[in-house]
């Protein structure tokens, strides 16, 4: 079982992201790819200051990832000199987000990146199942789960923060169940936003997240 704070969804016009970074950090985040900047801004919004030292794992996903940076590097290497600029190569490495986040979230101890294989669905069922296991095993105090997306027009992040013990402002309990709730949300990238809509329109009740049948049990969200 785990407890969740209010889900967080962020949406920035692409040009607004640097200002959002400065507002969150008090300074620009130099030499960081746009998706890593989005990750830092979201992680800080999802974890209150008093919990940033706690042991934390990050499980994050993206459909496009560093797509435009990959195109830039392909042109640079294949249609240019054959050489790459070091920063352009680093910009296509999603793994580099983790050490950049750890500078502001000292408790971050592990991170995994799940790139999507299609545009319609996400891996929330997978990452939330993994998060429940990690919390059950006592490996971390909190697990951050996120879906981050960049397009030429906007940057968007959806975040869930799970912990084993309820926080003062925990609004949802998450557990596994073999029972089907009356309401099931699809496993889409913006699932946290849909969860917020559900919280806004229901005072009680439970909700399932659509999961692969192979997982044998469903993820059940209960309003506290």
């Amino acid at each position: 079982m785990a407890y969740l704070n209010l889900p967080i969804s962020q949406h920035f016009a692409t040009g607004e992201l640097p200002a959002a970074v400065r507002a969150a950090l008090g300074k620009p985040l130099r030499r960081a790819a746009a998706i890593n900047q989005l990750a830092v801004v979201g992680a800080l919004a999802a974890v209150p200051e008093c919990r940033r030292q706690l042991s934390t794992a990050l499980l994050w996903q993206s459909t496009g990832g560093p797509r435009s940076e990959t195109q830039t590097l392909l042109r640079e290497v294949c249609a240019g000199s054959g050489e790459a600029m070091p920063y352009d190569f680093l910009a296509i490495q999603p793994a580099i987000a983790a050490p950049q986040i750890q500078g502001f979230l000292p408790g971050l101890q592990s991170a995994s990146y799940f790139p999507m294989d299609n545009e319609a669905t996400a891996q929330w069922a997978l990452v939330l199942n993994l998060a429940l296991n990690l919390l059950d095993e006592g490996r971390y105090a909190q697990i951050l789960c996120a879906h981050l997306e960049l397009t030429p027009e906007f940057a968007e992040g959806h975040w869930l923060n799970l912990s084993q013990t309820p926080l003062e402002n925990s609004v949802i309990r998450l557990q596994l169940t073999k029972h089907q709730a009356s309401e099931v949300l699809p496993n889409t990238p913006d699932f946290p936003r849909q969860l917020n809509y559900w919280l806004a329109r229901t005072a009680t009740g439970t909700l399932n997240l659509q999961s692969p049948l192979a997982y044998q049990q469903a993820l059940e969200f209960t309003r506290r």
Partner: protein
Amino acid sequence: MRRPVYIAASGLLCARGGSPEAVAASLWNGEHGSEVRRVGDREFPYFALPLSEPSWLKRAEQAVCHVTTQLGALPVEIPLFVASSSFQIGHYEQRGEPYAVSVANAAFSRQLAAWMQLSGPLASISNACISGFSAMEAARSLIASGRLDEAVIIGIELSNQVTLAGFSAMELLSPTASRPFDARRDGLVLGEAVAAVRLSATPSPWRITGLRTGLDAYSTTGPDPEGGPIAQVMADCLNEAQISASNIELIKVQAAGSPGTDLAEANALHQIFGKKPPALLSLKSAIGHTLGASGIAELVALLACLEADQIPATAGFQQTDPKIGAISPVDRNNCHIKRALLNLIGFGGGLASMIIERS
């Protein structure tokens, strides 16, 4: 619920051969030949797959189907986890302008599943050089907790110019050869591999008793030279396996011949194992650093060596580095190893350790 997870089957295609047994035999014989690849005006050694097909996509299909066959008959609904750091970027290169990159980062994973004739749940993991162990950690967690009964994890890293140029730009490549822990080491050598394991809750000869990932944020491109975070992940892994360091008989090290990373790993080994660590073996100087596939490729190769009771020598090692101290790879031998530890150290601060044990 927490149950043991076993390695039920494995498959491998890399520069040293087309099956785990062939690779083990090649390693035992000390083979470590490589090809040459060019980046701009510079040339670097490279461990390529023994496939002559010129089309990147057809070559990928050949490699994936070849490895899938080695896993035996698979239920079509078995969950598939794909580990890679570059996915289909070589295909984009070959298609040329306008370098149309799929909207979904890991669209290639769907193609992989189709080639493998699998239609169950599909997940992709990209954590640079520790991708393979990250994928295994996810699959193992779901099996151990009873959510899944089995899963296939495939690591794939195929030739592409972008990765070569990137590593070259970072000055991480050796112009001559990979020399793990050697005083003359001057960089790593990249390579290709496709490797897969089938994990299961059903008992098999080898069990995963510990698997931990961690993060070293010292720098985005290299670990803390003191090795503290690497040592912590090894310690966590030993704790999970409920054994002490003295119970480890062999370590498959990350050591790829990188001046800084090899030193950091050696310092971590000193912290956990003291002055006299167990037998050490690096495989990267014989099969190349296969990045996102390296975890699974090296696990499968190591298992085949252990099954044959043939521990190979580490290619490229000749001269002890005084800065590293009494850390040197083991001579080739026929020891019967019951328990081994495997380390991965990745770009972006990713760290992973795994302990495997005979059932």
